[in-house]
């Protein structure tokens, strides 16, 4: 499978992993119960809600729908979309498709690895970013390309890629500061 995730997770993330909020799962299970071919949409819905699929969610879906745990695990590990561990707030998908490879996408990943101090597939200490490589984002004529959230960035250089990350980081810090002021 394409994305190989590495198991060493920063602390911030493991705390979150211990108590995922599963309350949203019930309506999802209701919606898809007894529907043909419901397994993948169920997993996709769970991940949409939580960012990953925790063990407890597997159990809950299995109890709610009667789908075998082993079938669920088989499907969840087959497709590269599904994550079994929590990830950073922003997932950086650097394209390593053919067009991006030819246009030197590895330079982008190298630069981001250096800036974020993580390897491909890992999450940063502060839990803000997870770095991933993907196969093609469909914007090949703007290669090399990366995607963060729903935003696609094209014609990257190592400098411009790092700049994007910096801007997001500043934005995140601002939001954090504002929300902590509100709390006080």
């Amino acid at each position, binding site marked *: 499978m394409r994305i190989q995730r590495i198991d060493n997770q920063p602390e911030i993330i493991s705390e979150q992993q211990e108590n995922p909020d599963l309350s949203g799962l019930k309506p999802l299970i209701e919606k898809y119960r007894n529907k043909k071919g419901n397994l*993948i949409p169920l997993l996709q819905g769970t991940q949409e809600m939580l960012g990953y699929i925790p063990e407890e969610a597997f159990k809950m879906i299995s109890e709610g729908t009667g789908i075998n745990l082993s079938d669920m695990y088989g499907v969840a590990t087959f497709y590269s979309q599904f994550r079994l561990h929590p990830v950073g707030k922003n997932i950086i998908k650097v394209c390593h498709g*053919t067009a991006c490879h030819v246009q030197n996408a590895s330079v982008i990943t190298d630069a981001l690895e250096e800036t974020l101090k993580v390897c491909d597939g890992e999450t940063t200490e502060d839990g803000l970013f997870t770095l991933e490589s993907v196969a093609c984002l469909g914007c090949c004529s703007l290669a090399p390309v990366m995607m963060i959230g729903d935003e696609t960035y094209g014609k990257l250089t190592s400098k411009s890629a790092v700049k994007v990350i910096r801007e997001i980081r500043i934005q995140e810090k601002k939001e954090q500061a504002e929300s902590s002021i509100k709390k006080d």
Partner: protein
Amino acid sequence: METTKVIVGLGSCGIAAGGNKVYNKIKEMKELENIDFILDKTSCVGMCFREPLVEIIDETGAYLYGDIDEKKAIEIIDQHVQKLTPVKEYIVHSDLYETRDDNFFKGQVKIALRDCGFINPENLDEYEARNGYVALKNIAEKGISQEDIIQNVLDSGLRGRGGGGFPTGLKWRFALNSEADEKYVICNADEGDPGAFMDRSLLEGDPHAVIEGMIIAAFAIGATGGVIYCRAEYPLAIDRLNIALEQARKAGYLGSDILGITGFNLDIYVKEGAGAFVCGEETALMASVEGKRGMPNKRPPFPAEAGLWGKPTNINNVETFANIPWIIVNGPDAYAAYGTEKSKGTKVFALTGKIKNGGLVEVPMGITIREVIFNLGGGIQDDKRFKAVQLGGPSGGCIPEHLIDTPIDYDSVNATGAIMGSGGMVVMDETTCMVDMARFFLDFTQKESCGKCTFCRIGTKRMLEILTRICNAEGEEGDIEKLEELAYHIKDASLCGLGQTAPNPVLTTIRYFRDEYEAHIRDKKCPAKSCKKLLTYEVIPEMCTGCTVCAKNCPVDTIRGARKELHFIEQDKCTHCGVCFSKCKFDAIRVY
């Protein structure tokens, strides 16, 4: 006086290039300054290399502006819309002026892409105004029979655009002849070939064309349900498809007794893929729709006999479906008038890589590779030398310079060892290493192999290991022969197209670029200067100023020399990382 229209290109590529910012700026100007014009959006016309694009249509004609940012947007609204003087230097295409990009459109024939970049894809009226749903209405009003539709598609000579090239009409006939209470049509929008984006552009730019094609196919084979299997990496395409499906339901193109045809009931829904290349293969795709692991199954039974949920199923590619309404409206002969004897009509290609005009083109079959790359594509970036073009993605092969006059049709392309594929055309220049390309594709197929067939699962892994060794300066005599032997076994012993074609990129590069493999293995040199481990870095004494930047940045401390004195690199510790080369401000590092 007709109101001027300003249309911003908002396909994924336009948005990535900054199209939304331009759109918002123009909207803000319109509202703040109360300027009278209609602001609209469209998708990609294929000129990705000039994104963001803004088209202004006024009484005098249509003007396409390219490379527009917020500043230029203000200028063109001000000059063109307000003062009626077009800003010539930003115009990239117009019937009224000659521009340097005109060649990009010369030689193109737009059938599948007929509406892309011309309509707002979220507006059904605009699709209908350009012959949209006329084919379906003709079928309903004139009572065209299932058999007649299939005969039309057969006569047009249309072959599947998903890569296989199987005659579409024939496939429909098989599905029609299978008796069953339920049947399905599936649109394959998984577009797994990394480096291709024809289907994305079509779905984003003209979703109704694909949907209409599916409805016609459903009627022709007697299907009761439809699925569009779209990869999750295309969120915009999925959004626009869902909007279009809802509009089609409201307008009565989907539902019960569609357009008054008694008993013709159909609904279509979008199914999001979950990220597996092999799910583009039709049997794996259906397993995935059923919620299973996407593993291919043995054929026969073919999908036309027992497909989704065991029912007869017809599965076609996005582009195949988009051609159908045009063929029904204009007649099969009009379609067959384009192309060659065995490959009729037009084909969409995604031009990427080291090409000047990267984008989407639709050309008649039979055009040569040279025409596409050098006339439409404008040649190679930085006027470097053309080396090869990759067709068919991970299943295809690299076509070298001496075969550049090969006509693009199924048989001629197959004869080179590559395949037509779905339409990805990745152009490579002298700086692209062909051994590294082969390694790249093997890395892809090895990871994407579903693991069912031993030869595909393990054979590709062994081939990848050999190729990685060669790229890391550890190649041995006999490696090429080992690669060839493994390749033939994998081709023979794999169930689906993934394994059967996975060795193609290796075999074609060995066939046309054997000398590069030998240079890697024997001389430990990479002629394209791309494989880092095979490069030697040296200080050029005449250029070195002794600034010490290289020595400071060297991660393994292998550069010696005092300030203001000549530096030198101790080769035995060098890890070939290239940092010295990229940091030197005086071009004093030579790479060979």
